[in-house]
Structure formats: C-alpha cells, structure tokens
C-alpha cells in the first residue's frame, strides 16, 4: 500500500519533471510572468534536477532566477541543420531578413544602455543613431524610418524581443507605429536582456583579420564564437563528445552517422543505449534507431517548432513531396518538384483542400520552397546544386518514414509497386471511409498526366 503510494508520487514527480524539461527545451528563455508562467513554475520547481541533468549530460547551463529561467543552449559548431533555425516573425511566421537581424541586434545594444522604460519612438531614434555607425554604414545597409516597410522591420524586431520577454508592452500597438500614427511604451526587462546571448565568448572580443574575404571572415567569426578550447585529455575529450552527442539528440530531429566524426561515431555506437536512454528519460522522446542514424521521435508531437506530418496547404505539400522523395535515391531537381506541385495545386485548390491562390501562377515555387524548408529543417532532405547549377534536393534516409507502403501483413488490397513514384501521390479520391484500418490512400492505376488533369477538372 505504502509502496504503491510512493510509486504514484514518484511517477507524478517524474511526469512533472518531464514536462518541465520539455518546456525549457521548447522555450529556452522562460519569463516568470506572462504566458510562460505555468512552464516557468514547473521549471523552477524542478530546477535543481534539471540544472544537474543539463550540466552533466549536455554541458548546458540552466539559470533560474525569480524573474526568468534560461537554458543556455550553446552550440559547439554549425551543424548540418544550423541554418534551419532562423529568428521568425510572429505572424505570419517568416524568417528574419538581414535588415531585421541587424535591427534586432541594434535594439539590444540600445536597450542595454536604456532606462527601465522606453518608447518605440525613442528606441527608433537611438537605433538610427547606432545604425549610423561608420562600420555598419559601410556595409551598405541604410536605415531610415521614412517608409512603412522600414518601420515594419523595426516593429518585427521589437516583437521578437517582446516574445523573448526583453520588452513588455505597457501601452500602444506597434501597428500604429508602422502606420506612423502612434507610439508604444515598453518596460525593459534587464535580466532577460542579459540572458539573451548564449555564446561562450562575447562577440565584441573577437577581432578578425580585415584582409580576408567576407565569407572567410564570417566563417572565422562563427568558428571563434563557438570555439571551445581543446580538451586536456583523452578522457575529457570523450566526455565532451558525449555531451555534444546528447545535445544533438536533445535538439536535432535526426542525428545521421554520416555527419559524425569517426571518434564520435565510435563513442555513439558504444554508448548508444545510455545516451538515448538518458534523453528519453528526461524528455519522454522515443529513440528510433536505424542503420543510418538516430531520431529521437516524439509521441506527443509537441516538442518541436516544425511539424510533420501536418495539415494545411504547406503541411500537405510537404507530405506529398516527402512521399515522392521517399521513393527516390538520387538528387531531384527542384523544378521537377515544382511541376509536380503545380500539376496538383489546381485540383486541391478547387476542392477547397488548399488555400485560395495555391493554383495561381508562381504559387508553386513558394509552396515548394516552404515545403522544402520544412523537410530540410527536419533533416529529411539536403539542398544542393546539380551539375548544371540548378537547385536540387537530395533525400536523406529518414524521409522513408513518410513513404506509402503496403500493409503487407493485411493483404487487404493490391498495391501498386513502390518503384513507381506516381503511386506516392494519391491525388485520386475514392471513398475510403470503408477502410479505416489502412494507412494509405486507395489508388487507381497510375494515370497519365493528361488523364489526371481531366479527372481533376471533372471533379
């Protein structure tokens, strides 16, 4: 009796810890007040456990103060998917542009010297002043607040800081500022501001040789930003690789063996169960171990910023492309994918499955780009260029998760051969309500393009 009660308590504590860990992994900067309050309370309650875990296993530091919780996710190097984590605007979710990145940094610089409250107008003036810095002006970026677009850029950068709790809105609305009809008052939260940077070194302490070209200089800067001094001993080196692997397992959708150094690969092979087990215990993720790598997959589907599969036009397009790409093994031209989407878009839009405008000329490019962004972010494809310089897409092994296959054991129905790419594109609608147990679309014989076209029109 007492035993079962203890067990129940322990399990509820473990559950809470798991939720706390997932919360801080999903949002590495949690404010104590506002929308994060519940998550913050969880993290605060289990801060000792989490701090110890992240420090021991991942080498990440977790800071919990009464105002905020910050998990400093340091990255050792730019991994294969490093560029797939852009800062995004809130609505619609769109990656930041150069101008917005620069503005966000200038805002932070200005805010770190600002008082406890500030208006957007005041911020704008200070930012313009900071942007007039000769070095920055030399890059050719010009900042004014004359146009609506420019003010919109500033508002987007400000909203990003609001999202991370550096600023909170006291009065006003950025939209009014963008329309040039009003101003906004903010509280500045110094602790959150101080917690923004996660790099091991302050960027201002890194100087680079002026002689090298922009790309080399950038690479050098990045390398020095994420540089870690060499480990003193073999054992420490192993320890570091272990932490690095744990970080990848915690943060990345798929860890491919191909991307690992031989030493890391050997270490992962030797301690795979321990490493994945630790991550699984903390987060509730499930290791999916395959010949090509490991994916920590999420039964909840919540510990991610990019979902797959997902409904909606973009989610559906990504799924269509994934099922298509799952059957090929060679680089595919992006143009081919665009024509694929173009050929389907009309039908889907006509039936109301896809958003209006999806069938308009040019929409296919955007849809394909968005879908490929998603697939790339999830480590399912790799972008490249073909011999002719055309953009191509190389499917990566895990994309096979999204293939359509025969439920061979059931033998309920006859299936087209998997080597035919068209079968992966279930565009023909049947009444499938009668087959609830099957996980695939019922297909006609692969149709010719022309016939498919007419069919869609007929519908």
């Amino acid at each position, binding site marked *: 009796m007492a035993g079962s009660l203890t067990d129940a308590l322990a399990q509820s504590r473990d559950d809470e810890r798991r939720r706390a860990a997932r919360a801080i992994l999903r949002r590495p900067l949690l404010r104590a007040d506002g929308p994060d309050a519940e998550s913050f309370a969880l993290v605060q309650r289990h801060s000792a456990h989490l701090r110890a875990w992240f420090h021991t296993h991942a080498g990440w530091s977790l800071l919990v103060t009464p105002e905020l919780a910050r998990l400093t996710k340091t990255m050792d190097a730019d991994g294969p998917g490093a560029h797939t984590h852009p800062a995004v605007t809130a609505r619609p979710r769109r990656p930041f542009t*150069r101008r917005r990145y620069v503005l966000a940094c200038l805002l*932070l610089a200005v805010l770190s010297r600002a008082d406890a409250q500030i208006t957007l107008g005041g911020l704008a003036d200070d930012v313009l002043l900071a942007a007039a810095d000769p070095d920055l002006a030399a890059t050719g970026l010009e900042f004014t607040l004359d146009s609506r677009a420019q003010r919109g850029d500033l508002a987007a950068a400000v909203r990003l800081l609001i999202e991370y709790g550096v600023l909170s809105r006291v009065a006003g609305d950025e939209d009014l500022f963008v329309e040039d009809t009003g101003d906004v008052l903010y509280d500045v939260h110094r602790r959150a501001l101080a917690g923004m*940077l996660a790099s091991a070194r302050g960027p*201002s302490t890194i100087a680079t040789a002026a002689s090298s070209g*922009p790309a080399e200089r950038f690479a050098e800067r990045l390398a020095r930003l994420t540089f870690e001094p060499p480990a003193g001993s073999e054992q420490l080196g192993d320890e570091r690789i272990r932490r690095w692997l744990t970080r990848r397992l915690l943060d990345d959708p798929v860890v491919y063996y191909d991307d690992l150094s031989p030493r890391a690969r050997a270490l992962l092979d030797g301690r795979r169960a321990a490493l994945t087990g630790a991550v699984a215990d903390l987060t509730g993720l499930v290791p999916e171990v395959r010949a090509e790598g490991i994916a920590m*997959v999420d039964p909840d589907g919540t510990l991610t910023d990019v979902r797959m599969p997902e409904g*909606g036009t973009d*989610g559906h397009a990504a799924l269509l492309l994934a099922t298509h790409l799952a059957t090929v093994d060679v680089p595919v031209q992006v143009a081919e994918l665009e024509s694929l989407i173009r050929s389907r878009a009309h039908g889907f839009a006509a039936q109301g499955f896809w958003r209006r405008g999806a069938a308009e000329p040019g929409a296919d490019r955007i849809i394909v780009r968005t879908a490929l962004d998603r697939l790339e972010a999830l480590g399912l494809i790799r972008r490249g260029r073909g011999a002719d310089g055309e953009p191509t897409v190389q499917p990566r092994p895990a994309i096979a998760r999204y293939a359509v296959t025969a439920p061979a054991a059931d033998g309920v129905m006859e299936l087209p051969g998997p080597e035919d790419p068209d079968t992966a594109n279930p565009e023909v609608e049947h009444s499938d309500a009668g087959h609830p147990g099957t996980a695939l679309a019922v297909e006609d014989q692969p149709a010719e393009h022309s016939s498919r076209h007419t069919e869609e029109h007929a519908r």
Partner: protein
Amino acid sequence: MDQADAPAETPRPFAHLQQPGAPLYRAIMGTFVQAKRRFIVHLRPEDIRAMLPDHGRTPAESPSLDGALASLEHWGNLRSDPDTSRVTSVEEFRRARYLYQMTDHGQAAEDALQTYEAALGRRGSLQSVALDDIAGRLRELHTLASSGTPEPGATHLALRTLVDRFEDLAANAQAFMSALARTIDVQDAEADAFVAYKERLIEYLERFIKDLVGTGAEIARLVEQIEDLGVDRLLRMAAERDTRDTAPGPADAGDTADAVLARSLALWRDRWQGFRAWFIGSAHHPSQAMVLRGQARSAIPRLLQVVSALHDRRSRRSDRAADFRALAQWFAEAPDEDAMHTLWRSAFGLQPSRHLGVDADTLEARAYDPVPPETPWADAPPLLISPRLRRTGSYERRGRPAQVLDRSLARRHLAERAAQEVRETARARARLATGGPVRLSDVGTLEPAEFRLFLGLLGDALAAKPLGARTVEVSTGDGAMAIRLSECDAAGPEAGESGAAMAEIRTPDGILRGPDHIVEIRDLTAAPTGVAGPVGDEAPLPEFARRGA
C-alpha cells in the same frame, strides 16, 4: 603691454578666474605661492616659465606668459619692478624687463582660493570623539558651575574648548552630509570603490547615530543642569578673560572696555544659545542633533539603494552593448541568408528543440514487432499516416472515437416530454377536482390521463381505508390532491333511482366497474377554489358530473 606701474583702479584679484586663460593664470599665481614658501619674493618671467608645470605646452589660445603677467598686474594680483640686472644680448636689453612679486591683494586672493579648494575637497566626518569631548567639557563646566567660586581660568578654557570642538563638529557634520549626498550620486567610475566603501560607511553612520543618541542625551541633560546652576556667570567670566586678552585697538573713543565686554558677552551668549539649540530642540524647532540623526539615518537606506542600483548597472555590463553592436555588424556582413540564420542560432541559442513526431499506433506496431537497429529507414515500416491527410491535407483524429456523446437532442426530447406530462397532469387535476361530493357513478367518461390520476387517487383512498370504516380521506404522496371517499347509503336518493350500488366509469381503454361511492376530490395546488368549496351536499357539481348526470 597695457600694464601700468600700479593698477589704476581698484584691484580685482579674482578677475583672472573668469578669464579664458584661467588655468595659466592660476598656474602663474601658483608659482608665486610656491616661491613664497621658499622665501623668494621676486620672480623673473624666465623663472616663472621654468617653474610652470606645463610651460612647454601652453595652448595656443591662451595668452602668452608676458601678456598673462601684465594682465595679472593689471588686476592687482602682481606688482612689477624694473629689472636692472645684467643682460647678455641686445634683444634682451631692449625688451622691457621686470621683476614680479605678489601684491597683498594677490596674496589674500591666493589664501582665499586655497581655503575655498580645501573646503570643497573636504570629505567631512561625523565625529563621535567630538561628542565625547563636548560631553567631557560640559561635565567640567557643570562641576565649575556647581562650585561657589568657579576658577575663571578653568572656566574660560573649558568654554573655549567646548566652542572649538563644537564648531568642528558642526562644520564636519555639515561637510559630511553634503559629501554623502555627493557619494550617493555616484558615478560609474567610482562604483567599485563605492561598493567596497559602503560597508564601512554604513557601519560608521550607525555608530555615529548611536553615539548621537547616547552622548547627545547626556549633553542635553548637562546643558540644562548648567543653565539651572546659572550659565551666565560662567559666560561673563569667559567674556571678561577674552576682553583682558584683547590687544588695545586703535585709539577709538567709543571703544571703551565696557563696550568691548558687552560685545564679548553677547557673543558668548549667542554661542551658548547656538550650542543649546544644537542639542536641545523645542516643539517647533527640532534640535540640530536630531536633524543630523535623521539625515544620517535616512542616508543608510539611500546608500543601500545606490548599492542595488550599482548592481543593476553592473548587470547591464557595458560590453553587452558592444557585443550586440558587433553582432549587428556581423549580420550586416554575413555572406548569405543561411549564414545569418546560423549566426542567430550560434549567438543566441534560443531555438526550440525539434523532433519528428510518431503516433501511438506506430509505436504500438513497433512494440509488437520491433525494428532492429541495423535496419535502414527505407526498409523499416513507415509512419502510419492517415489516408485522409495524405489525400486532402486535413487531419482526422485517428483511432480515438469521440468519448463525449452529444446528448443535447435526447435531453431536449426528455425535457419536452416532461413538460407535456406536467401540462397533462395539471389539466387532469383541474378536471378531476369535483369541488364537492360526487357519486362515483356520476363521474362518467374520463380521458386516459385523467383516469390514470383518478385510479391512483382511488387506490390510495381504498388502501388507506380502515376495515369497516365508511369514510376515508387521504392526500396524495406529493401533496397535490386530496380525496374523500364515502360508501354510498343504499337509501340514497340516487341509489334508489339507479337501483344498483354499482358505478361505471368509461374510458377509451375500457370500463371500470365497482361499488358506488361518494367522492370529493380537491386540487390542493389550486388553493382558492379548492378551499372555497365547502364540504356540503348542496355544492354545485363539477362539469363532468353534470355531464354524466
């Protein structure tokens, strides 16, 4: 050169402070002060140039040394005498040469400036020791005052010392409080020093406050005791001794010894008053000691505020701004978009963890049929994805039937039925209420709802009827109706007419037959009519009874 041998107008020895070349003027005067310390009175321009600390770096806009000397002479700070010493070149000889020395005005101005600077630079201190000294002198005075013939020398000395120490204390306290105000308005550069210093400062303030409370009370008590004993006697003594010491002034008719004494005594009385006011307050004017204590006390929280503000300022380390500016530069120079996104992740590390999803069915399938780790993804069973999602791009919830049924329709149906029943019952009741005794045989035809209710009532009444009793009265369980049932007399008029003591009630479903009774049914919910109808044979028959009759 516009100098004259002697300043034509009134000397303006402070004028040079307001001039553009003030630092040079100050430096020149400084050389004279320095020279005078070494007992050198006259200085040649060459000497001055050599002694100037930065003679080689005189700013272009400031006047030349010669011009400066001439100006100083013009304002009356310096006096020049022709220099008659030997020279070695014609040019030198032709040039006007002078020896300079400070005038009295200049000297006084320098002294004043030194005092001024010293006062500005003074950090001041709160003197606990001074308080002790003051208390000590007061005790001494108290002893003297208590004695019949105080010794004038000792009295004078004690008063003198008291005044000196007190002036010290007051001046210092004032300086300290202003210095504290300056300290609290601390600058960035002094922050470290301040944080190191604040512990000691607070400790010091606390000790002073304690002493001020302790010793201050003793001082106040002593002051009052001395006044009670007669302080004026002591003051007069001191004044007399002061007067005796004063050197005879220039022959001045009015300045008699008496007048001097009176002046001196007035001064002493003022001093005492001031002293008294410092330690003993009135209702309207708190004592200076009290004010000081209040200030010192309020300085402590202010100090602590400064400390926290400093910590705050420190948490926005100034190099943060530099870091962000550097990052802005890096973003501006990043070669392409991917580079910018990479930089964002590396510098800020704010990205959420990202994982592929898996559904419960797939997991279950894997639990039954585990996939070996060496299986390539392509050979492993893929994710179970809803065909509907694949086909239409919109989700259907898989595997989980809706657990909460929508019962609103059924509920509405039930509610309607209940309402219907209530209506029917109410109607039946209204119909059944006889309003007086009625023969059962006169009831005649009843609708099903009425009949059901009637039957229930009859059943209740018959069940409640004791054996052998002829009359029974019961009310229904819900208290809505009451029935009074009596057996019919065979001799009744109607009985005779009908010829049988049997009653018949017809309903659409059949006919109820039984021995005739007289019933009286009252609807208790419809109180007025029910109660109004008295139990009596002459009561009017209800509608159905009349119909039946």
